[in-house]
């Protein structure tokens, strides 16, 4: 359920029009992802950050923090915190495909496999790719690992998001 505030849509429509006339957008995918992140309170509170954003690949990072721990005996980060970061990363992966247009993309479903627990204190890095974009649905694959050990994923995910176009999005926001 990753949604954008109205200001974000206004920004994008204006910028998208500029992109048509100027031929080259004045902002990058990374700019849009960062703007997206700024608008999502829960993701900010988690401490999530965007590392890179390309058409088929978004990388995000979630630093370990005491209050995100799921098991106080081991200090392992809670699966829910990892899920929330990956759900957000998946939304950004769709944004990178619809670029320079910006759309609201609620999650339809999300499956996450936890392959191993990340070590206490380790930041988690997620890579998300929207590998298929249709008129109404976006299909996304995600992988996460402990920072520095990308050969050993800790979690893999598969998700679908639905696309609400700007016109419709205006109605949903409707205020």
């Amino acid at each position, binding site marked *: 359920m*990753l949604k954008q505030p109205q200001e974000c849509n206004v920004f994008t429509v204006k910028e998208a029009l500029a992109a048509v006339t100027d031929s080259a957008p004045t902002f990058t995918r990374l700019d849009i992802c960062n703007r997206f992140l700024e608008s999502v309170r*829960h993701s900010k509170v988690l401490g999530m950050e965007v590392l890179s954003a390309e058409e088929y690949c978004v990388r995000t990072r979630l630093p370990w923090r005491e209050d995100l721990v799921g098991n106080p005996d081991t200090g392992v980060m809670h699966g829910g915190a990892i899920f929330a970061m990956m759900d957000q990363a998946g939304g950004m992966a769709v944004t990178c495909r619809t670029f320079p247009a910006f759309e609201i993309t609620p999650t339809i479903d999300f499956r996450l496999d936890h392959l191993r627990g990340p070590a206490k204190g380790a930041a988690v890095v997620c890579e998300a790719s929207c590998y298929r974009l249709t008129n109404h649905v976006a299909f996304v694959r995600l992988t996460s690992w402990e920072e520095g050990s990308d050969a050993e994923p800790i979690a893999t995910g598969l998700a679908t998001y639905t696309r609400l176009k700007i016109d419709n999005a205006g109605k949903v926001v409707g*205020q």
Partner: protein
Amino acid sequence: MNVLKSLIEDCRSGKVEYQALVDHVPYARFLGIQVVSQGDELTFVLPKNDNVVGNPTLPALHGGAVAGFMEQAAIIFILLQMGEPRVPKTIDFTIDYLRAGHFRDTYAECSVTRLGRRIANVHISAWQKNRQEPITLARAHFLLSDDNA
């Protein structure tokens, strides 16, 4: 006896509230999860709170926060059913988003489809207005055994 085991025994015997078990988990405190018991039934509550908002304009809850809330609810639910309680490890978690989560309190209840020796299979549903209109449905598997698989 470890802290977790004695906490669970105290919850079962009614010496302490179930909330103490929830508050034992840092991430559950981060989300602000509450638990309400009616007889043997447990309902988990995610009180509306600025920190779980995804879209501030609507405002709508962050899907990830709702998922984390449901996962934690399932973990507490299983812990209370285990003979030798150990924190279950999530193997997989699958969620369907059916309706937008509005900025209001969210409730969740769990049902264990099967509690095996090693694996638990759990369904979780979350709602806001009434149980008949869930906002999300999730299904998860948890590893119960102690080995580091």
